C-alpha cells in the first residue's frame, strides 16, 4: 500500500469508472485510455517492463484508436440515445454482488508472507527464450489467430459498395 500504488490505483479506478459512466462516447474512450495508462504504470511498478510497454503500444496505441474510430463511424447526426439501458439497476446490483464475493474471497485467502519476496527477473532475453522454446506452439497459434482476425475484420467491415468497386 505504498504511495505510488495508491496514486496509480486511484487513477485506474477513476479512469475506468469515468469510461463506464460518461455520456459522450469519445470521452468514455479517452477516460479508458487514462485507465489503461495507469494499468501500464502498475505493470512497470511490479517489474514487468515488457508487458507494461506492450500494454501501452497495443491498448493505448491501437485498441483505443479502433474504438474511437468505431464510435465516430456509427454516429450519424440526429442520433440521440440514452446512455444507460432500462434495466440498469439489475446490472449494477449484479456487478456489486460479484465485487462483494471476490473481495470476501480475497480477504479470507491466505496472505503471502508480509514481506514481499525478492523481485523475479523477466528480462527480454528470458521472455524471448521462453517464447521460442517452451511456448513456441502458442506463439504460432496466436500468429495464425491474429492473421485470421485481421482478414476477417476487413471482410466483415468492408462496405458492400467498396467491395463491388474493387471487383
Amino acid at each position, binding site marked *: 500500500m505504498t504511495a505510488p500504488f495508491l496514486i496509480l490505483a486511484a487513477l485506474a479506478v477513476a479512469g475506468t469508472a469515468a469510461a463506464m*459512466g460518461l455520456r459522450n462516447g469519445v470521452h468514455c474512450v479517452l477516460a479508458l485510455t487514462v485507465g489503461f495508462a495507469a494499468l501500464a504504470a502498475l505493470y512497470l511498478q511490479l517489474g514487468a517492463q515488457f*508487458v507494461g510497454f506492450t500494454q501501452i503500444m*497495443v*491498448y493505448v496505441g491501437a485498441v483505443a484508436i479502433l474504438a474511437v474510430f468505431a464510435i465516430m463511424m456509427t454516429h450519424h447526426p440526429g442520433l440521440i440515445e440514452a446512455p444507460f*439501458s432500462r*434495466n440498469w439497476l439489475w446490472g449494477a446490483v449484479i456487478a456489486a454482488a460479484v465485487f462483494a464475493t471476490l473481495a470476501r474471497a480475497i480477504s479470507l485467502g491466505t496472505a503471502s508472507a508480509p514481506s*514481499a519476496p525478492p523481485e*523475479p527477473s523477466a528480462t527480454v532475453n528470458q521472455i524471448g527464450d521462453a517464447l521460442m522454446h517452451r511456448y513456441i506452439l502458442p506463439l504460432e497459434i*496466436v500468429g495464425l489467430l491474429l492473421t485470421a482476425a485481421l482478414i476477417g475484420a476487413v471482410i466483415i467491415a468492408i462496405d458492400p459498395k467498396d467491395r463491388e468497386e474493387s471487383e
Partner: protein
Amino acid sequence: MSSLQSYLLLSALLFSIGLAGALTRRNAILVLIGIELMLNAANLNFIAFWRFGPHPANRPDALTGIMFAIFSIAVAAAEAAVGLAIILAAYRHSRTTDLDRMNHLKG
C-alpha cells in the same frame, strides 16, 4: 493487508466496474470496452501473482504469468478488432448501435 491482496482487490474492483459497464450501457461499442476492461483486470491478476508468488530458483515455468499476460493482450486486441467490425456491420444493417433496440433476430 499484504501487497498481493491489495493488487487482487484492485483487479476485482476493475473487473466489477467493467462488468457493470458491460451490463448497463446501451451502446454496443461501450459494452465491448467493458469486456476489454475485464480482460485487463485479469491481466493485472496474472502479473500480481507472478510478482508476489513463490519462486524456487530456476523453475521452468517461472515466466508463466508474463507469458499469459502477453498472449492475453494479443488475443484481446484481435477480439476487439473483430468485435468492432461486427458492430460496424450491424450498424450498417439496422442504423443504430443501441442494444435495447437490436433485440429481435428478424431483420
